[in-house]
């Protein structure tokens, strides 16, 4: 049954400072709402939605993409349409551009925000694997100040994260140092648009003198939250790519993955497909295939 529209207070203070003051006065009481692609769906379905919502839509201080030469800063309320349209993102962080293009459809991408995707913390979040393999940093802000942390440390459990009750996600920072890396991202879903990932795998790696000198692998829908696959990385670091290392990397992934059975897929399917995606990436890495 649909939620009651009379039961929710929604305010739109209009500036970042006013939002932070509001949250600071009653930490944990106010839930931010940006494009509504999560909260409005939950409300329509009659699932629990916070009584007090503070709108962060339409606040220019939170919707920006700022190129800082060594890195790029993406404001929390930046939409996936904004990301798709940004030439530097497409050029230097193409996995993020690709992930943005397969989130829902045009009408979702124009409303869904980077901050919403990250804070919501779905295990299947489309943008998260790309952020993880680009070593993203999260910038949190509150009326007390701001702090930064590695995105890899942000999720702490299913739909849980490292934010304090008075904090708001302010921006995501991506270092610009992946020009030489081979990059990979593939999502497996039921159709190209409007599908939530059964499983997705992202990777960035450097191959030098026939050996993997740097590698990051991250996955969606293989754990209670989007996560780096550290055992897979360890199994591959410093190794050449051959049938033996591919086999050991697959084994590491199968040991590390913690997928579940749900309405979209089964744990076993997710494990096997993820291992196949990893193998596909490694073969592309070895052969120098640059197609995405």
């Amino acid at each position, binding site marked *: 049954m*649909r939620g009651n*529209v*009379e*039961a*929710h*207070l*929604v*305010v*739109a203070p209009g500036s970042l400072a006013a939002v932070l003051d509001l949250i600071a006065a009653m930490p944990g009481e106010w839930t931010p*709402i940006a*494009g*509504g*692609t999560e909260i*409005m*769906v939950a*409300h*329509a*379905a009659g699932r629990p939605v916070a*009584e007090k*919502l503070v*709108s962060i*839509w*339409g606040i220019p201080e939170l919707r920006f993409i700022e190129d800082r030469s060594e890195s790029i800063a993406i404001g929390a309320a930046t939409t996936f*349409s904004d990301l798709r349209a940004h030439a530097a993102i497409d050029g230097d962080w193409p996995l993020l551009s690709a992930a943005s293009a397969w989130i*829902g*459809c*045009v*009408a*979702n991408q*124009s*409303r869904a925000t980077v901050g919403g995707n990250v804070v919501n913390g779905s295990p299947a979040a489309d943008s998260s694997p790309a952020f993880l393999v680009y070593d993203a940093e999260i910038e949190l802000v509150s009326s007390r100040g701001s702090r930064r942390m590695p995105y890899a440390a942000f999720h702490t459990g299913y739909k849980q994260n490292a934010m304090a009750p008075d904090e708001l996600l302010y921006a995501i920072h991506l270092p610009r140092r992946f020009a030489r890396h081979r990059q990979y991202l593939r999502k497996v879903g039921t159709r*190209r*648009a*409007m599908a939530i990932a059964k499983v997705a795998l992202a990777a960035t790696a450097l191959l030098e003198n026939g050996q993997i000198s740097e590698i990051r692998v991250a996955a969606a829908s293989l754990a209670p939250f989007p996560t780096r696959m550290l055992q897979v990385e360890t199994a591959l670091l410093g190794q050449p790519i051959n049938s033996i290392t591919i086999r050991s990397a697959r084994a590491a992934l199968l040991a590390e993955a913690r997928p579940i059975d749900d309405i979209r897929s089964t744990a076993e399917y997710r494990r096997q497909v993820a291992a196949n995606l990893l193998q596909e990436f490694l073969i592309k890495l070895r052969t120098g295939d640059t197609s995405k």
Partner: protein
Amino acid sequence: MNAPWTTVRFNLNGEACAVNAPPIKRLLDVLREDLRLTGTKEGCGEGECGSCSVRMNGELVNSCLVPVIQAEGATLQTVEGLATNGELHPLQKAFLACGGAQCGICTPGMLMAAAQLLAVNPHPNIAEIREGLAGNLCRCTGFMRIFESVVQTAANEGASIEERPAHAR
């Protein structure tokens, strides 16, 4: 809790408009119930089917997912805003000519998604048309006549439908 209602002002199909409503009320319901513009349809009510698509500030949105408070100051276009001075929009004419509409529930959303696509890309190839309409479901036509309607609109508007690779957009 009975939350206070809020007054929201926006420009709707070229006219200034003000409504008083609960702030989380869906833009879809405000359009249909408060403003009696029933062209915009509800399908799934959860952003999956595109029936409620409208244009907001030059972007396509699902009006079922927009709490009306976020429409404050917005420029909105619904299917009622496509025809001008009693003359159908070229997309509407093409949907008629090509059989792009059958039962009609998806049609307003399809028209708005197609209008959005042609506004940002007047010369879409077929892959771009499919992507532009990917969030709009039709259970009657099988989609081909809808795609053909968009192709014909672009052609009639002096655009040549070129096959271009997606990365050249």
